[in-house]
């Protein structure tokens, strides 16, 4: 909403307060002022001129040499290129020395050999937005009425000596979508009165009801009123009206249309003017449209209607879409003499639906959508009749033809002052509360310790006690609210065990050298299931903005690989990222997908690079696995985790494992397949993903101290010759199973595949530690335990070396 202060001044006294100060007060008390716009933009030396003569420029086809009187007897030659310049016009002249918006300075100049002492201006050159300039002057200079005086201040005349406040209105404050609404707000802030327009006009003896009948067949239209005005002379509106409209961001058309727009802005009540003769009937019938019914709207588009759209008809065919746009068939034209003014209340939901369906949002629909003031509908119609008589020479017929079932009663709110103070944590006196409510012009009575309030119907947002709390607080001043903390806390705050473990998981990843990444939950359909631990039905958006962000992911790995590619493309020689985020699987009973929190990582390129020491290590499977193992160790799960060779699409078939917790798959780890690496220009790259929900959710035993060993441990080494494909993990399992409780630890300390081995074989050496916390082991005991292991290994087909 753009609020011209010149216009606002008609209703409320704002003299003696600077625009910026007013804006600050309005903002602090409830309506945000987004901008304070000085329409004069510091312009100087812009005056009214009279074009005494116009000659063609001798050396330029498109230029004219004009003699322009810019003050009594002060005639200057000005070159003008506008197509619409003509002798005897009153125009706007920027004299030499003038400063115009956009840093333009006017100087004496020669144009193709002819002297020019200034510039004849278009409105755009004076900083008026092109879209609000009347069509007649959109492509040329602006022409003033004949009776304007040369040499006088043109800016004053065209309303540019004005300041406009741009309001950023929240949906609840639709009352401020009108000058009067803003006036009430400003009056409340400044403790001023509101001066309402005086509505008086003469009527002729003919009766409106003899011209038109009104009937309504839809509950969406509880009030429809028509006024008839004859002998209207269509013309340009007076300057002041045009410039008020332009300041409000509305383009002037002709007096009839401008009057309806003026009242729209003044009262917030949309009106519509029909050409009576073009209606071709003496009847207005409001009804729901027939499915597929057609109407050509004012913008010359044919619209096909649905059965829930509300239309105004002449008894037969639609002449307007209620509250949204008029029909071309009944439009006011330069030939119109008799107009029917519609002042109506249309249901907001209905208007909103229709305007959305048709893609037609207008100043009118915006106001109906939010609910207009029921008590202003008829007044606005009267105001229109008055202005049509005053400004368009119309003769107003007696009476208003109306169907009126509209509830115009105010909302009553009963609230106690204690409630207000308790809710705010303040001690505002009853007197102060009453004073504020009076300033707001709320009807208030204090009785039996309660405030009985009838809120004016222009304030549709006031319905409940809390609304009154807000009104009191915002005008009393939010700065006056003290600062306290909530009392009576019985709750001890904290993280859940899961949340605490998740932070630990982050610490482990970061301690291992990985940065935390955050990527998007939405991905392409193609990537949605890639690398998924368990692919299930995907969740897709109804209307995605792009294919790339159309489906919810089931694995974090694809976006981490993308991020690795992004870094490598920017010359990073080492990438180490992890992410914790949800994946979206299938559908649960309540129609939502099952959301599972995962942790994933990507490692690419160099891992260790101690350059001058010559120590370098590129990432490999075991770097990635070591990080995952560290996490399990921290979580106390080491003994319950196993790795099993696996195949995953997109991963290296020989370097991929499933990660099992208590035998259940909770993750994958592996090298990125060379074909996948190529897509992002990646070198050695390893990824892993864990079902974090399962991993952090696994209950572990309480931590209990075990005595520090007082007796020596005894180690025995075993070297085995194995098939190359035999996983060492399986051998460890065999050793563990066979080892008695004296066997405390099994470590791999050497793996050899090479020349000295038979083809297809490898040598793996294990170190076994035997230990008893209670005493020193005897040789016999160790031998006996170790023999059991050796026997089991032989039985398992391992060959001792």
């Amino acid at each position: 909403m753009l609020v011209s202060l010149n216009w606002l001044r008609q209703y409320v006294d704002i003299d003696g307060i600077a625009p910026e100060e007013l804006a600050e007060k309005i903002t602090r008390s409830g309506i945000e002022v987004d901008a304070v716009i000085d329409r004069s933009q510091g312009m100087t030396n812009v005056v009214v001129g009279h074009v005494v003569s116009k000659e063609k420029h001798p050396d330029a086809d498109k230029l004219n040499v004009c003699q322009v009187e810019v003050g009594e007897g002060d005639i200057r030659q000005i070159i003008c290129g506008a197509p619409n310049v003509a002798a005897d016009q009153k125009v706007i002249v920027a004299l030499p020395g003038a400063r115009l918006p956009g840093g333009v300075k006017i100087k004496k100049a020669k144009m193709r050999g002819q002297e020019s002492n200034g510039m004849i201006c278009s409105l755009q050159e004076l900083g008026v937005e092109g879209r609000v300039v009347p069509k007649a002057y959109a492509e040329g200079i602006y022409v003033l009425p004949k009776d304007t005086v040369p040499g006088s201040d043109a800016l004053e005349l065209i309303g540019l000596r004005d300041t406009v406040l741009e309001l950023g209105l929240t949906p609840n404050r639709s009352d401020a979508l009108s000058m009067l609404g803003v006036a009430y707000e400003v009056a409340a802030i400044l403790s001023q009165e509101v001066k309402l327009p005086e509505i008086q006009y003469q009527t002729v003896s003919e009766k409106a009801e003899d011209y038109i009948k009104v009937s309504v067949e839809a509950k969406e239209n509880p009030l429809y009123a028509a006024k008839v005005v004859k002998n209207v002379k269509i013309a340009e509106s007076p300057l002041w009206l045009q410039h008020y409209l332009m300041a409000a961001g509305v383009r002037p058309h002709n007096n009839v249309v401008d009057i309806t727009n003026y009242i729209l802005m003044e009262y917030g009540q949309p009106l519509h003017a029909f050409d009576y003769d073009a209606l071709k009937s003496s009847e207005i019938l409001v009804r729901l449209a027939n499915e597929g019914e057609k109407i050509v709207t004012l913008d010359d588009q044919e619209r096909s209607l649905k059965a829930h759209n509300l239309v105004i008809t002449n008894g037969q065919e639609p002449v307007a879409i209620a509250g949204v746009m008029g029909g071309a068939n009944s439009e006011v034209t330069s030939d119109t003499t008799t107009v029917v003014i519609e002042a109506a209340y249309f249901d907001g939901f209905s208007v909103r639906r229709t305007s959305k369906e048709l893609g037609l949002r207008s100043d009118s629909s915006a106001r109906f959508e939010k609910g207009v003031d029921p008590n202003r509908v008829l007044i606005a119609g009267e105001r229109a009749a008055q202005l049509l008589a005053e400004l368009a020479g119309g003769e107003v017929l007696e009476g208003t033809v109306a169907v009126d079932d509209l509830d115009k009663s105010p909302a009553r709110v009963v609230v106690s002052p204690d409630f207000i103070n308790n809710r705010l944590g303040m001690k505002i006196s009853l007197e102060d509360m009453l004073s504020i409510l009076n300033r707001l012009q709320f009807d208030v009575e204090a009785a039996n310790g309660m405030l009985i309030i009838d809120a004016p119907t222009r304030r549709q947002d006031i319905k409940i006690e809390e609304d009154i709390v807000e009104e009191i607080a915002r005008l009393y001043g939010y700065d006056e609210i003290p600062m306290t903390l909530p009392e009576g806390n019985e709750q001890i705050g904290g993280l859940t065990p899961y949340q605490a473990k998740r932070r630990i998981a982050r610490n482990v990843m970061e301690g291992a050298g990985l940065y935390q990444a955050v990527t998007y939950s939405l991905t392409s359909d193609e990537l949605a299931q890639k690398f998924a631990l368990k692919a299930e039905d995907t969740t897709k958006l109804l209307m995605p903005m792009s294919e790339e962000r159309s489906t919810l992911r089931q694995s974090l790995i694809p976006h981490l690989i993308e991020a690795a590619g992004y870094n490598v493309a920017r010359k990073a020689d080492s990438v180490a990222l992890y992410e914790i985020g949800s994946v979206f699987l299938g559908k649960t009973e309540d129609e939502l997908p099952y959301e599972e929190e995962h942790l994933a990582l990507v490692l690419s390129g160099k891992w260790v690079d101690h350059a001058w020491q010559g120590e370098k290590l590129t990432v490999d499977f075991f770097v990635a696995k070591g990080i995952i193992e560290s996490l399990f160790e921290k979580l106390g799960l080491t003994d319950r985790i196993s790795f099993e060779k696996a195949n995953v699409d997109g991963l290296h078939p020989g370097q991929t494992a499933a990660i099992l917790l208590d035998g259940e798959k909770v993750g994958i780890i592996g090298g990125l397949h060379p074909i996948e690496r190529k897509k992002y220009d990646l070198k050695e790259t390893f990824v892993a993903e864990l079902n974090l929900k399962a991993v952090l959710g696994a209950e572990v035993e309480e931590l209990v101290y075990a005595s520090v060993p007082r007796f020596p441990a005894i180690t025995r080494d075993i070297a085995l010759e194995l098939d190359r494909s035999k996983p060492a993990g399986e051998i460890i399992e065999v050793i563990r199973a066979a080892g008695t409780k004296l066997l405390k630890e099994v470590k791999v300390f050497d793996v050899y595949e090479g020349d000295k081995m038979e083809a297809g074989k490898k040598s793996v050496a294990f170190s076994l530690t035997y230990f008893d916390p209670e005493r020193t082991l005897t040789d016999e005991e160790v031998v006996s335990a170790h023999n059991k292991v050796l026997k089991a290994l032989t039985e398992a087909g391992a060959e001792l070396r």
Partner: protein
Amino acid sequence: MEQQLKQLEQEALAKLQAAANLKELNDVRVAYLGKKGPITDLLKGMGKLSPEERPKMGALVNAVRENVTAQLEERVAVLEEQAILEQLEKESIDVTLPGRKVRQGNRHPLTRVIEEIEDLFVSMGYEIAEGPEVEKDYYNFEALNLPKGHPARDMQDTFYITEETLLRTHTSPVQARTMELKKGEPIRIICPGKVFRRDNDDATHSHQFMQIEGLVIGENIRMSDLKGTLDALAKKMFGDDREIRLRPSFFPFTEPSVEMDISCFKCGGKGCNVCKHTGWIEILGAGMVHPNVLEMAGYDSKKVSGFAFGIGAERIAMLKYGVDDIRHFYTNDSRFLSQFHRTEG
């Protein structure tokens, strides 16, 4: 013989001095003091002496022997020290060369901001509540006083999955779910999480972003409690000398609703480009929980009241760290992420 002894002593001492290292010194020791050395020979030859000469000679030999041994030990000490010094000299390094740094990663800046806020509220007795990113229309809108067809829920802003399910547009549905779960009991929660809006990604918009919302419900929760809580938050995130101000605003789920500004941390309120020359920076939206929201979740709005607030983690991080483009948070450039490693304050 005495003459001989003196000469031996001179010789031994000269050789001791001449020995350049421990090995040569040892050779001298063996040569003169060893079992086959001349001094031992002399002792052995003492039997030939007369009994009265014997003690005299014995004392003399012992004196020589002790003197040589003492000198030897002294010499050993000197040479040992010299050897250590040589070793140390050899082992000397250039201490200005870089060390073997341990690789370390760090939190994403958004997590850093969120954890900082979580910790503040946990210390004030809050719990952390989380909920699904895919939500029901009911929890995302209806339970928050945003019935279907409400002007404030524009289809344009929401990613719908079906007519009844959507990607949550704020973390408020977690509040609605918590209220439903707590069945009328007091609540103090903070709800961090990812949220989604239909926006084209650019320098200031992101279709996915992070929010942190707070909710307190109990008997006699007042707007002054909200103000005091937000003041604590502002000071924690932006410094102890920050001031806050509340401005009236509108959210369907709160009444009254406010927006909170903090005094500009860059210019202190004088006006600069960060605060758009107003001295104040808009930080978050908040308000007193709307009675409809309380009633819908089964709370008696006559008996309890509450406040709620919502913060954009990106906005906080952008202001706090001076980040100029929201997309930085989602491209995961290591050169960006690694800047959020060190501690502050």
